[in-house]
């Protein structure tokens, strides 16, 4: 018999896939951004179904912010963000579909064929949300501290680099002169 966990995982998984596919089906950029937001949110809900509460909430919060920014950029940059002109913004479609299907099938075959190690005997016995956050905190400030710090510095570097790239050339040269 299918457990509730399996049911909700499959439900949110299918939702994530359907909305993920909708990103590239619609001709409206705004709808694409919203579809990606729903796909990522469904993924966050799937994490919650897998009892990874912290990661699930983090995923939903992060993606809601990211996709909102993406939607704003869509409106800023697109000639036709509403998709009213029915513009086609794709190329090499046949090759892309082939590559996408091949990648998905290959990954699925590996998932079936691989000899995964045996998991815990009772799957329901996972630490509570509070205990998980505590254990993650211990992990972050313990042996994974360097990795965590590196991730932080990487984001900071990316923010500075992105800002530097985005500054208009005129302002850049003026700042250089002064």
């Amino acid at each position, binding site marked *: 018999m299918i457990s509730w966990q399996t049911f909700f995982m499959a439900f949110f*998984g299918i939702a994530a896939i359907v909305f993920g596919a909708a*990103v*590239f089906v619609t001709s409206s950029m705004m709808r694409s951004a919203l579809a990606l937001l729903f796909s990522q949110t469904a993924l966050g809900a799937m994490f919650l179904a*897998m009892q990874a509460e912290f990661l699930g909430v983090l995923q939903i919060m992060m993606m809601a912010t990211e996709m909102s920014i993406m939607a704003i950029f869509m409106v800023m940059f697109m000639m036709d963000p509403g998709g009213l002109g029915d513009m086609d913004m794709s190329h090499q479609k046949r090759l892309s579909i082939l590559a996408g299907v091949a990648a998905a099938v290959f*990954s699925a075959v590996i998932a079936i064929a691989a000899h995964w190690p045996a998991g815990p005997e009772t799957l329901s016995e996972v630490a509570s949300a509070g205990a*998980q956050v505590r254990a993650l905190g211990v992990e972050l400030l313990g042996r994974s501290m360097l990795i965590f710090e590196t991730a932080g510095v*990487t984001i900071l570097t990316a923010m500075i680099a992105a800002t530097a790239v985005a500054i208009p050339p005129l302002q850049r040269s003026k700042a250089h002169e002064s």
Partner: protein
Amino acid sequence: MSPDLLVALFTGAALFGIGVYGALSQTNLVMLMMGVELILAGALVNLVAFWRFLHPDSYAGHMFVLIVMTVMAVEMAVGFGVAIARFRARGSVEMEEARELKG
């Protein structure tokens, strides 16, 4: 193998495939980044499932997830920086018009 793990891995595989399609087929930089986001989302599902169904006692799995989320954020930041620079220079973020970058 747990059927739950299989559900998660299949979801990851499907998202990965859709992402590959998007990254290869789209001509717009922002749409292209959406494809990359989906590829990384596929990796995220797998990592959370590996933690949950194979090693629930090891929180290094959570660290991997946080690193992938960092990569997603970095990709967005740098991608939008490049998009703004490109839009200022050419008035468009269509990658078809960026063929001169080929070298």
